[in-house]
Each structure stands twice: as C-alpha cells, then as structure tokens.
C-alpha cells in the first residue's frame, strides 16, 4: 500500500453558533488585501440557503467536481464535469462556467470622509457605499458577505437551496411554516481533497498537494490566470484575485501548522466545533474510491482511510516514508475517532467525488427540536409514552433526506445510523445525569445506535469537554528538517508564509 498522511478536519455542526469569528480571523490574516476583499477562505453559511458564492452547490450551473463517464454515468472511470483535457485548451480564452464577481458580491467600503467634509445642510450627511474595484459609488448594494444569514431573505435564498430539490413540494411547503422554520450553520473551508477538482482542472499544473501533509496549495508563480480551478472546485473554494490575476485559496494556515499552532479559524472558533488531526490513507485507491456509485461513496472513502494501530499499516506507512511521529500523531487524531471509530462525521457532498477531507458531524437540533406549547423541546413522543427522541427521527422537522443529500450523497441509511448514535449518546447521558429516563430505555437507545456506554462516554468527552490538545493534534511537520537538503533553514524561516520576495502585485 502507498500510505500517505493527510491533515484532516472535523466540524461538529451542533456546536456552531454562527458567530463568524472564524471567518474574521482568517480574513484578518490572509485576505485583507486588494483583490482579495471578496474572498472568504472560511465562510459560514446558513442552511437551507444558497450559500457563497450563490448556488455553489448547483453543478449544472458551475460544472465543478467529477462525474462518472459512460453512457449513463455507470462506468467507474472519472472525468471532470467541466471539460476534458482538449476542452481545457479550447476554452482557455473563455471559460463558459466561470463564476463572476457578481456571483459573490462586489466588495465595497463607505465614503466616511463625507461624514466630516459634507457642507452644512438640512440633512445628516451619509457615508455612501463605494466599490473597492472601481472606486465608484454603488447605488444599491445587492449582495454582500452572509447576505442571507439566519434565513434573511429566505423566500429568495433559502427557497432556492439546491438540496431542497430532494424534498417533496409538501415537505418544502412545511419548512416555510412559521413554527417549523429551521436552519443551521455550515462553516466551510477548503476540504484539501484527495481527488481535488482544482488540481486536476489547472492547465498550468500550478496547484498541488503537499506530499507530507496533503495541504492543497496554488503556486502563485505558476498560476497564469487560466481560471479553470475556480470552476473545477465544486465547493468554490479557489478564488480569483482580480487585482493580481492569480487564483488563491485556503492554505490551512500552513505557516501556523508548521510552527505547531492550529489554523486561525480553528484556534479562534468560539463554539469549539473544530478538530484537526492526521489520517493515513491508501493513495493507490483514490480513483477507485471516487468512482463508485453515489450510495457507496461514503463507505468507499472510509475504506481508503487506514487504521493507524494496525501493524501492517504502520509497516506500509514507514515504507512510504512517513515518520514515526506522524504515525503517532495519526493514532491520537480526533478526526480518526469521529470519522472512523465512531463513524459520526461525514464528508460534505461526497457526490462531487473529490474525496474531501473535511468531515461534518451533522447537527441534531434542526432535525429533532420541536415547538411544544411555545417551548422548544428536544423531543416529542411523550404522547406515545416513548422516551424522548425515540420516534423523533421519523417525525424529523428537517427531513432526513435533506441531510442525506448534503452529507451522504443521498444514502439515508448512513445518515440514520449517524443520528441513531447521536441520539443514543444523548439519551444515555440524560439517563445518567438527569435520571428522567430509565436505565432500560437508555440501553435500548444504545442498542439502536449500535454503541456502548464506553463509546458514548468517549464521544461526550471529545464533543463537550475536549482540551485544546485533544481538539488539535498537530503533527510535527518538521519543515526545517524536510527542506534542509534544498534550502537553508534560516532562509526558509524568513520565508514562512506565502514566501514572496516581491510584493504580489501587477507590475506590467
């Protein structure tokens, strides 16, 4: 086996409070520049909603990711949904599926000067919005970051969520009823995929995956603005810097990782929803795993990820050049626990077939909470004499199908297994702490959730009370060591970051 290490991530959606601290932390460090103002390498969107850029999940519009070739998509061979290799050269003068700045929003500031300099008059002076691209006044701002936050303008935005197409008209109707309205937050960064669409789409070969840790980066010196990556990434996580004419993306704060710090969005996360750790995977089977049928995708991706305790895997990992520290880090990885041991975390839209390495624990609240006598209850079923939450999956407020459409390529069985386990953990802990559920009922829930008291305790521990070191198990990337053959470590130290020696701007 050709084992590689991947710094991977888990976001626990039940814990996200939608505060956008993560986005701001990232913006302050990386994208507070001309040409990058509109970029949110980390963004948090409200679901249901159309997201950022608008309708990014609609691959009929943007042609991101992969599809299976063959007459009706049944062959396991993959091809980019965007175009073939020849097509990339043919479309190089005009990419028909490129999102434009209007699909994000036109960045602006305000004419604050006017507040001070306006001549005396009858009205209060105002600070009018000014485009950061053209410097001209914008009459009406029509879109901005998180324009549809918390279901703002939901008849326009939430109603167009591509994931809703899986639901029946009646189900969609119900979701608009005042007391059933439901939403949750979806924080998104680059997934640092194993079968990345951006890497494959780049004609110049400027985008690459770092062998040591799997971080996907764009070489700013090789990028020639052919702009295919922006279409190729189905998550729309590569962005075009309109000022420098280069694509940019989340770099997983590699300069921070290399010095043992968690990425800025992870570190600053108020809800502490984020986990980071190493996964070992079999690089020889990437294509195979990305080529199975929709329903099997989650399982196939799991099968790529290897057990870091298995002596055979350890041997293969060593043979593939992975350091013992990296293997030890993989054994401690919180991501391994959520994704593999507990099988609670799922990839976002696996049907894009890029094998994303950011996994999500789906949220319970929007699915299970119900309004009862003016109060939100986590459960119903009391009327039927059942313990809370036993029957709740069937009566879910947000149909399970919606969640399955996002996190398991429509496979509701996988989705149900995740929720059964999450429910079991809650019931078990409730029986233990609040003691209003009988022992028998808790045991029943554990059985339904296919879990044990020990596992439930471990899940609670890592979900609710993890330490910083438990959330972020940062492997020793030992960059200085890895590069010392090619570069003076002191020079490297001075270069940490993008490594520019000239300012990244247009000079010609």
């Amino acid at each position, binding site marked *: 086996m050709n084992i590689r290490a991947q710094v991977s991530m888990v976001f626990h959606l039940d814990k996200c409070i939608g505060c956008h601290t993560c986005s701001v932390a990232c913006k302050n460090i990386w994208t507070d520049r001309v040409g990058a103002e509109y970029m949110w390498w980390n963004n948090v969107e409200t679901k249901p909603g159309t997201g950022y850029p608008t309708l990014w999940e609609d691959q009929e519009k943007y042609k991101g990711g992969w599809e299976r070739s063959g007459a009706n998509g049944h062959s396991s061979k993959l091809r980019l949904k965007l175009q073939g290799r020849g097509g990339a050269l043919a479309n190089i003068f005009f990419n028909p599926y490129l999102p*434009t700045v209007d699909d994000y929003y036109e960045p602006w500031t305000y004419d604050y000067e006017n507040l001070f300099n306006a001549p005396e008059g009858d009205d209060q002076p105002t600070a009018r919005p000014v485009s950061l*691209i053209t410097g001209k006044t914008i009459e009406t701002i029509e879109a901005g970051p998180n324009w549809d936050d918390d279901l703002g303008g939901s008849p326009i935005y939430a109603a167009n969520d591509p994931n809703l197409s899986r639901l029946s008209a009646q189900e969609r109707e119900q979701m608009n009823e005042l007391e059933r309205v439901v939403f949750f937050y979806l924080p998104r960064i680059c997934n640092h995929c194993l079968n*990345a669409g951006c890497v494959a789409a780049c004609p110049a*070969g400027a985008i690459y995956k770092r062998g040591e840790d799997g971080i996907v980066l764009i070489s700013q010196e090789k990028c020639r603005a052919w702009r295919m990556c922006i279409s190729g990434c189905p998550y729309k996580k590569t962005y075009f810097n*309109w000022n420098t004419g280069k694509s940019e993306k989340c770099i997983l704060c590699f300069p921070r990782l290399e010095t043992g710090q968690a990425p800025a969005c992870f570190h600053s996360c108020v809800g502490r929803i984020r986990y980071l750790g190493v996964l070992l995977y079999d690089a020889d089977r990437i294509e195979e795993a990305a080529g199975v049928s929709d329903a099997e995708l989650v399982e196939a991706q799991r099968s790529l990820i290897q057990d870091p305790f298995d002596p055979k895997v350890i041997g293969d990992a060593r043979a593939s050049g992975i350091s013992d520290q990296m293997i030890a880090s993989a054994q401690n990885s919180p991501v391994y626990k959520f994704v593999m041991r507990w099988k609670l975390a799922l990839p976002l839209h696996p049907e894009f077939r890029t094998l994303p390495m950011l996994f999500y624990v789906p949220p319970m609240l929007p699915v299970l909470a119900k309004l009862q006598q003016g109060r939100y209850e986590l459960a119903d079923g009391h009327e039927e004499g059942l313990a809370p939450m036993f029957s709740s999956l069937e009566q879910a407020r947000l149909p399970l199908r919606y969640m399955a459409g996002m996190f398991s390529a429509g496979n509701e069985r996988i989705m149900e297994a995740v929720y059964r386990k999450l429910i079991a953990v809650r019931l078990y802990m409730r029986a233990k702490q609040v003691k209003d559920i009988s022992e028998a009922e808790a045991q029943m829930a554990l059985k339904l959730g296919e879990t044990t008291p020990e596992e439930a305790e471990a899940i609670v521990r890592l979900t609710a009370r993890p330490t910083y070191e438990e959330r972020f198990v940062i492997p020793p990337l030992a960059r200085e060591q890895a*590069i010392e*053959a090619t570069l003076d470590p002191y020079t490297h130290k001075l270069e940490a970051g993008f490594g520019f020696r000239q300012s990244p701007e*247009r000079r010609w």
Partner: protein
Amino acid sequence: MIDLVLFVAFPYVAVVLAVLFGIYRYRSDRFSYSSFSSQFLENRQLFWGSVPWHYGIVIILSAHLLAALFPRAWAQLIAAPLRLYVLEVTGLALALLTLLGLVLLILRRLRSARVFAVTSAMDWALLVALLVQVALGFWVALFYRWGSDWYLHTAVPWLFSLVVFQPQIQYVTALPWIVQLHMLWGFFIILLFPFTRLVHLVTVPITYLWRPYQVVIWNRRMRRGR
C-alpha cells in the same frame, strides 16, 4: 541606409531584446507571467471579443508561420487556383473576425468600469499596437491581393536571410510602404512582448494534455525501511 536600419538592425534588436528580457523577467519576476484574465470581472462582452480574437489570430499567425517554414509545401498548396481563392477568402474573413474581436475587446475595457480599473498603461499600449497591426494586415489582405503567393517571394526570403545571418533586404525594399509597415510593426510587437502581458503566449499549458490529473509535491521524499 535607413532601409538597413529598419529591415536588418531593427528586427535583430527586437528579437534579441524580446528573448533576453523575456528570460530575465521570467527569472526575476515569474509572478508576473500571467494572462491577467479579466473574465472574473466581466463575462458577457468578453465572449464576443476574446473568442474571435484569439481563434482568429492563432490561425492567422500559424498560417504566416507555416508558409515561412515550409514555403515549398505552401507553394504547392496554392498552385491550384481554387485552393488559392479559398485560402485568400478565408484569410480575409479571419482578418475581419480578428479585427472585430479586438475592437470589441478594446471597447469592453473602455466601457466596463471594473475592467478599466485593472487595465495598465502597458495594456493600452499593447492593445493599440495590436489594433494597428491587425488593421494593417487586413488592409494588405484586402488591397494587395494574392498575398499568400507574393509573401513567399518577398517576406519569406527576407526572413530566411535574417535567420541565416546573411541579410538581404532587396526582397522587401521595393514593396508598398503599407506592406513594409505591416512587417516592421510585427517586429515592434515582438519588441513589446517581454514588457506586456503578451508573455502569456509562451506559457500555453500544452503539458495539460498528458500530465497526470493529481499533482503531489514532496520537499524531500524519504524512503525508510520497515
């Protein structure tokens, strides 16, 4: 004397400068080797400008190049009158297409405030230079007919003489001034090449046709035993 400067010295200077400075810029400022696409800022007008312009100019330039490289094959190609007509008409049509595309591209840069904001002085210089050249080419194709033939007996031997370092300018000195200007302006654009975004021409990503889809880069591939 002036002919020697124009038809011998100038082409050499232009090419040498283009190559040397192009290499220097690649080594010292690789970041700037880019097509600086503005499609992200403006999409609709670009289609009608960029596609005709690029396809037109690529085909026309290739024809110039092929005829110069394989004059005998080219002569055979145009030996039959029908083929000559077809070639001339196609060339004229392509020249028109290219010209229209370029005009649209220039209008777009003027009209769209967003694209205007990312247009540098060098971009304008290049656009004007290209417009002049394409207009000259169109003019020549229109009023000095059978260019696909006389090109072989004028410009091609002259270019060949330059390549083998035995300049012979008598092939071109007697040509109408507008044809001469078209030739010299071509070298002027070569001169502009390393100072503008035209450098994207040498970065055409042809390797995409065969490179593996996934690119993985290691700092230092460590090999260890079990």
